[in-house]
């Protein structure tokens, strides 16, 4: 580094010698040379004083950086034999051990996802993980969202600079699953798949809204599948999940990729519709969206929509877990605090 003032330049060229720094360490910052510079500063014309002061500080920063870097080098540890199970000269009671299992925990979202998947396996669904980055075709076009369609506004999507999308729903996998599933239909088997995964919404974060959450999508396609099947399938799942009888309401809704479309509302499993803080004292909980797969979506995957019909749904897992444990803030899930995590087994 070059300094404008010769006095500083001179001190700098002397002090920034690696050998000197190695020798003196941090004491170099109290060296008489630097002290003289400060003394000089006080006697200077006010015109140059500010700049001179700045340069002294720059020099100090430069020295500090050098000290830091050298400390890094000095503390570089010797290579070790990475193929050994333990280090040299370590008594056996101080060998690395696994921690006590009582410390361990699985993430509650993952535990719940496994529970949910287990029910769907038993109901005859296969599963496939949803992607975390996808293209416009899978996220929108194959789902009957034309370019520029206002329905796209309902999804605050993260876009990459390359024009890819962080999926805002697990439906981004539908086209792939339908194409893959044609073989099943040809052998008189239904397409029955659930698609769990992370989804992303580019919106302000608060206790109830995260930018990332987990969703699970379900698809069922076969000959003669109807709306009654949809309600029954989802009701059966929920009754198995909550181990109790449930009431279910379909509220008409709009999604471009299903027709008809619904929002799924279930009677609150925590208060039997009496009203509690989980359901905001309404007795009902909105869980997710569903509907009969739009014929254009089937056709886009090469499935004859006159012969085959099907339904699809998607719901959030975070919400279920929050309700189940009474978790007050969705941000806990990704904050990585052991205090939170260790409360779950």
């Amino acid at each position, binding site marked *: 580094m070059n300094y404008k003032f010769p006095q500083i330049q001179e001190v700098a060229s002397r002090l920034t010698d690696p050998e000197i720094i190695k020798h003196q360490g941090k004491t170099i910052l109290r060296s008489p040379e630097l002290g003289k510079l400060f003394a000089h500063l006080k006697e200077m014309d006010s015109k140059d004083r500010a700049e001179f002061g700045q340069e002294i500080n720059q020099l100090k920063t430069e020295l500090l950086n050098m000290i830091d870097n050298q400390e*890094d080098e000095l503390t570089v540890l010797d290579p*070790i034999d*990475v*193929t*050994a*199970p*333990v*280090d*040299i*000269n370590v*008594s*056996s009671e101080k*060998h690395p051990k*696994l*921690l006590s*299992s009582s410390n*361990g*925990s*699985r*993430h509650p979202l*993952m535990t719940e996802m496994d529970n949910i998947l287990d029910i769907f*396996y038993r109901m*005859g669904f296969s*599963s496939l*993980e949803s*992607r*975390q*980055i996808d*293209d416009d075709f899978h996220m929108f076009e194959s789902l009957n969202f034309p370019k520029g369609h*206002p329905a796209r506004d*309902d999804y605050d999507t993260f*876009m*990459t*600079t*390359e024009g*890819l999308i962080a999926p805002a729903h697990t439906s981004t996998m539908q086209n792939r699953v339908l194409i893959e599933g044609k073989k099943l239909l040809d052998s008189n*088997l*239904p397409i*029955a798949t659930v698609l769990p995964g*992370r989804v*992303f919404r580019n*919106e302000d974060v608060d206790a109830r809204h995260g*930018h*990332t959450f987990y969703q699970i999508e379900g698809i069922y396609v076969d000959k003669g*599948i*109807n709306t*009654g*099947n949809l309600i*029954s399938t989802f009701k059966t799942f929920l009754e198995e999940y909550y181990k109790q009888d449930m009431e279910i*309401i379909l*509220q*008409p*809704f*709009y999604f471009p990729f299903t027709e008809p479309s*619904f929002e799924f509302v279930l009677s609150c499993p925590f208060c039997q519709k009496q009203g509690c803080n989980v359901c905001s004292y309404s007795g009902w909980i909105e869980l997710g969206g569903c509907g009969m797969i739009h014929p254009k979506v089937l056709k886009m995957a090469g499935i004859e929509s006159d012969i085959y019909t099907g339904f699809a749904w998607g719901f959030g897992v975070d919400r279920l877990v929050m309700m189940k444990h009474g978790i007050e803030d969705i941000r806990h*899930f990704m904050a*990585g605090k*052991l*205090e939170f*995590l260790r409360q779950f087994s």
Partner: protein
Amino acid sequence: MKVSLNWIKDFTDVDMQPTELMERISSQLGAIESIEYLGDKYKGSLIVKVVECIKHDRADKLSVCKIDDGGNLKDVARDENGFIQVVCGAPNVKADMLAVWIPPKAIVPASYDKEQFVLESRELRGKISHGMLASPKELAFSDSHEGLLEVDFKVEPGTTFIQAYKLDDYIIELENKMFTHRPDCFGILGIAREISGIENRVFKSPEWYKEILDIPLPKENKYTIAVDNKIQELVPRFISVIIGDVQIKRSPTLIQSFLSRVGIRPINNIVDATNYMMALTGQPLHAYDYDKVKSLSNNESSPVLEVRLANEDEKLTLLNEKEIKLNKSDIVIATDKQVIGLAGVMGGLNTEVDETTKNIILECATFDMYTIRKTAMEHGIFSDAVTRFTKGQSPRQNMAITIRAIKLIKDISHSHQYSQIVDNSKIVKENSVISITPEFVNKRLGTNLSIKDMARILSNVEIIVNELDRELRVSEPFWRTDIEIKEDLVEEIGRLNGYYKLPQELPLRKINPTQKNLNFGLNASIRESLSGAGANEILSSTFIHVHLFEKVNQNTQFAIEIANALSPDLQYYRLSLTPSLLDIVNLNIRANQGIIEDNEFAIYEIGKSHNLVDLDDDRLPVEHRSIAFIFAADNKTAKRKYQGAPYYFAKNYLSYLIDRNHLEVKIVPLRDVLNNINNHTRIHQLISAYDPDRSAAVLSLVDNEFMGVVGEFKNSVKKAFKLPNYCSGFEVDMRLFKEDVATSNYIPLPKFPKINQDICLKVDNSIKYITLFDAIKLQIEENKPKDTYFSLNLVDIFQKDEDLDHKQITLRLIINSYNKTLTTDRINELLSVVTESVQNSLGVERI
């Protein structure tokens, strides 16, 4: 969107009680966000006649009034004529007017939802005032507070305010999303039609909406208007007409009241009239001050309205007084020299209708929804008009609405039609006609509805149905734009019939077993292993701040960047998982510092990372699945419990996973493989945090493929994340973990006692432990007695202070035979042979 139930009742009877109605709306029309009953708010307020009004002798601005409430209210002091005294400060109070009185003990409606203000009788400068006469603002009617609400229609004094203004009303807020494809439901008329359908009643649209008998002619052709629509493909219909001699004032109070209820602020009679028609039909209208338009034209005598796309560098100040720079994709309305409106979004301030306006141009147009959406997004303007125009209104209703609007404006502003109605129209899309069979519908709903049932359900909401022999020919009514395919009719029939009536049957299928997802199964078993070994599973964000890359020396140039992230914390897809884990080490160490004795933890995450380089066959980024693990102990804990390099802690966990999952890998010094992986972006980024001299690469045993890294972190990384000294980790590719294919390492149990023997070997420091271990193991394997099996384990590694060039490795052999009891001599003999054989190759010396 808010609707008023009483306004709806102008168009259809409603039989159901509110509770039932709301339930049915939710299940047959769309979700209700909120319901508000207005009646409670206005309880007590009465329409009164001011019979006497004299100036207060001790206050300039106050008047002392006698009011006639028809003698309706009890418990209030009256004069000898039965009138009640109220002191009033409003400038417009006068004798003989009809006003609204809030009597003592009643709540001021505007305060109802906040801190409720209850009136009483009290003295104002020596005169008792019983309650108050109210302004529109106090009545939560509009924000006008300049004077009293003057009741502008005939009503008996003493009538309740609720009755006079139909305030026994429910305001229902419906979720807009449901109506993304139903522009007609953005109007009272559309909702009334649906409610009628839900109640299984035939709806009849008002005559003015359905039948256009005559296009009204101007009273006189005083003005002409010409329209030059340069973009008919984006503006399929543009109707305009000049209405003159308007008197600008407040609208009739009933109109104001209904507009306020549905969330529209009353402004003046002209603007209110356009908004009223919009609230009714979902079709936005706009009024321009005609004289201002003229003055902004080159040809002042006959201005031309241009409908076109904006030019570059054009600007417009909108009605909200904000100036915007127009984009070339914006549709604008302009004169031949000046833009006067951002079409479908907001009018221009330069042609605003205000108190000086004499003549107006009324516009009723249809704009391309995609273009309006783009304009609204780019300028960030989301007006009521935008909400509606982005749903794709039918242009076919525009003439009926224009004619009705002209009539309304004439009625409330004492004006006249002064030009022809100019209808610039080129409607391309025909109303669709669809044939559908009952079987098609029943198959998709699971119902058993007859052709007659279906015809009735559809005709209730004025969908035109021709019942043929075995099918229905269905025509889309002119206000609908969403009925395109048969499934749209399935929705209509299913919904209006009620989904709650559908028979609920599970789908039937063959009992073939479904394929379980291998990855999920592996994830679950790894979670079980690690959590059982005291580790804590974390989840962290897919997106990270650029700082995380910098802290571990990763190269952002390989990272996928989010273009529109709201926060810099979410700007990039992560290149590996390790930085996310390192990021939470310090906070967790600090959280328990000095609080718990063993301040240590092991955290792990199974997740995905992405980069710009690795693309799959669809040109999409490959989703690399990996597991990352970190162990950390604060210095005090580490000093007390552990000794040696922290590397071995992470390695111990990795070995645990390797053993449990029978992974076929080898561990080699990271530095040894650096040269081979230099060109490999992902691996390079993955190892960037690890100290190459104190870390190992995990290679696949089969093909030496790099599968991960285990080790300690570089000093710069430790510093950047403020890591404790005793900290290490690993990140390995999840492809390492494979389905456990019935290979078992089971060893049958021998009947004879086992025998163990330690062997201590002095070797040169440069010999890797694994080299020695493998060599010994191989020799034992080759020289051991028949029908035996053995295990070989490390006891310890020592180094003498006086001989730093060598180390002493002690191994323990445990050996067992299936057919006899082994003797110590036999084992010693074996070990001698073994030692001898490695002595030459590795320079080992047995101690």
